């Protein structure tokens, strides 16, 4: 009985400490970060949105997307543009339903999906199936991967050039301009931001 009473007493003290902690790290701390972000990096804090001309904006109504999030490339314009990776987020690139496929390495479903994607990408780009790089046939972790590998971008250069009427060299130069190398030469992987690249392609064509 005395143990129960002691626990009750300690819980009351705990509740008081919890309330104080909530005010400090549950309200003051996130708002402080909010305040600093609003002054020092409002664009990033609002989701790194860009307009059709590639200009930074914090107004969603004039934005075409976020440069740190991938988006679906579909419809009439899709043939002219670089394609992102397969996505398992909702119906594809849905930030309200982020997800990977979570399929294991021996999953028959994943094996079938990879075969099908390889054939589709090869047919679309007019290349041998063996040339299709890994990121083109696998779904990302977030379902929102903004990037593709330089190899997948290179694979798509001839098609984009044909479709837009740009010279292949010109498209290749745009790819190079939007390729980020490893940070400090070692961190992460070389990558191409698909939205930024596509904005450049549209501006150029």
């Amino acid at each position, binding site marked *: 009985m005395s143990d129960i009473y002691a*626990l009750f007493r*300690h819980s009351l*003290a*705990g509740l*008081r400490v*919890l309330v*104080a*902690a*909530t005010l400090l*790290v*549950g*309200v003051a*701390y996130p708002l*402080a*970060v*909010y305040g*600093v972000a609003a002054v*020092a*990096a409002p664009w990033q*804090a609002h*989701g790194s949105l860009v307009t059709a001309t590639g200009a930074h904006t914090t107004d*969603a109504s004039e934005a075409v997307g976020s440069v*740190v*999030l991938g*988006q679906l*490339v579909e419809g009439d314009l899709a043939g002219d*543009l670089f394609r992102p990776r397969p996505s398992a987020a909702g119906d594809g690139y849905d*930030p*309200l*339903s*982020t997800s*990977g*496929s*979570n*399929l*294991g*390495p*021996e*999953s028959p479903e*994943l*094996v079938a999906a*990879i*075969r099908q994607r390889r054939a589709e990408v090869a047919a679309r780009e007019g290349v041998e199936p063996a040339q299709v790089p*890994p990121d083109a*046939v*696998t779904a*990302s*972790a*977030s379902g929102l*991967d903004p*990037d*593709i*590998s330089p190899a997948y971008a290179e694979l798509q250069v001839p098609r984009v050039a044909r479709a837009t009427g740009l010279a292949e060299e010109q498209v290749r130069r745009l790819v190079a301009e939007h390729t980020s190398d*490893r940070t400090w*030469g070692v*961190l992460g*992987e070389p*990558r191409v931001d698909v939205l930024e690249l596509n*904005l450049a392609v*549209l501006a150029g064509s």
Partner: protein
Amino acid sequence: MSAVGPALAQVLLLALALAAAVPLLGRHLAHVYTSPRHLAVERASYRLLRVDPDADQHWRAYAMSVLGFSLAGVLALYGFGRLQAHLPLSLGFAGLPADGAWNTAVSFVTNTNWQWYAGEATVGHLFQMSGLTVQNFVSAGVGMAVAAAFARGLARSHRDGRVGNFWADLVRTVVRVLLPISLVAAVVLVLSGAVQNLLEPMTVHTLTGGVQQITGGPVASQEAIKELGTNGGGFYNVNSAHPFENPTPFTNLLEIFLLLLIPFAMAWAFGLIVGDRRQGGAVLSVMGVLWGGSVALLTWAEMAGPGTAPGLAGGAMEGKEVRFGEAASALFASSTTGTSTGAVNSMHDSLTAPGGGVAMFNMMLGEVAPGGVGSGLYGMLMLAVLTVFLAGLMVGRTPEYLGKKIGQHEIVLVALYVLATPVLVLTGVAVAVTAHAGLAGLQESGPHGLSEALYAVTSAANNNGSAFAGLSSGTPFWNTLLGLLMLIGRFVPIVLVLALAGRFAAQRQLPPGAGTLPTHRPLFVVLLTGVAVVVVGLTYVPVLVLGPIAESLS
């Protein structure tokens, strides 16, 4: 796609950053947990909260404070979750269901951060920042406080079972350690592209005429403490794979650095608290060896890409982001499971079979490589006591650790500690795979299905929180089972640790004699590493054979 050179270089860079920061933070931590002086703001808050920060608590009182504080936390967070629909910034989401609110409350209070829900589709901004973020801070504080109490128990002599003051430990940890580092880290994250706002999802019209909802939220502030406190609960469903949580390879390394920083620094602080830096060095070495080994194995597995699907795709990129690739994903995966973090930047369910096995083994080690903030240190020290005892049996030396005798009572506490989690894991997985409601959650059949269940119960009982996310765990069965595992897996070990701390504090400190096994030499590091691996190996080999090992061989 990853190349070997950069893969090695980024591990080296991380190791260098840790080597520079750990001694500094370790010294700060030792001061925090031993200084008799309070900051003015702390003293004012103690008075306001009516707690006595100078009472040297008996281990029982200390444990009562831990349990009472955590009970208050569970009840408050449960109520918060149930009522979120009626609170501001709820984004229109309904209150959590009873089983879900229970699971989440326990999950965040126990520093596990298992998530049955998808953040962007279930919980509003206020619950995230004033409910979950708060527990990210204080549950980390609880773990660190218990570790500090254990270190003080070893350092003291003849103190009648008194191990310090929980409230002072907790408040100091939050005010002097977690908050300042989180503030700096959160700002760096925002500057690098993480979001920090209170907006509802914004509609944009995409380049090809589609519609995309851009989500917002106070993400950066939660992200910083989520890694620093080895919590791991993502703001969004996909956790640190989400570009708004982890936008660049630089933020990726920063987040890995944050989640390893305090666990290693606690070992350094331990050496200073017990008055012999070499003792902390030995513990730190064991943590480093185990962590390094798992990084090497997991990186090898993901870069080699064994298995049918990775072979067909030409690389293990399913469930990974291009900006991280295989190497930075493997580094994150081994660090998040070696600490009790459980954040993920790749989907662990899609790791190669050996890679997923290493992640699981890391958690099975009991989160000691280097473990959670606090829990890593006390877990490793329990194993150190066990090692001393085993070595004593082998060579007939008196089992004593840092001048404290390991008698019958002490070794019983250690044995219970070592057995508690495996009993939970193995019982839990047995219940899960024999119940219809358990099997119903599995995405895949065969060995990978067992791995999904095994990973979940291992993650819960060891307070990790990462998942093979193919498992649909948001059902009353899984929510209840995993909630129980998290609760028992956190607080039974903590009470045993505090009981042992009290025993040690009451003992006289014996001077080392001719029969004492030195616990700061390389020999002891090797022994302790061996004990950690062998104890786990013997316990879990059968179930690992049926899961990831069978899958590797198929």
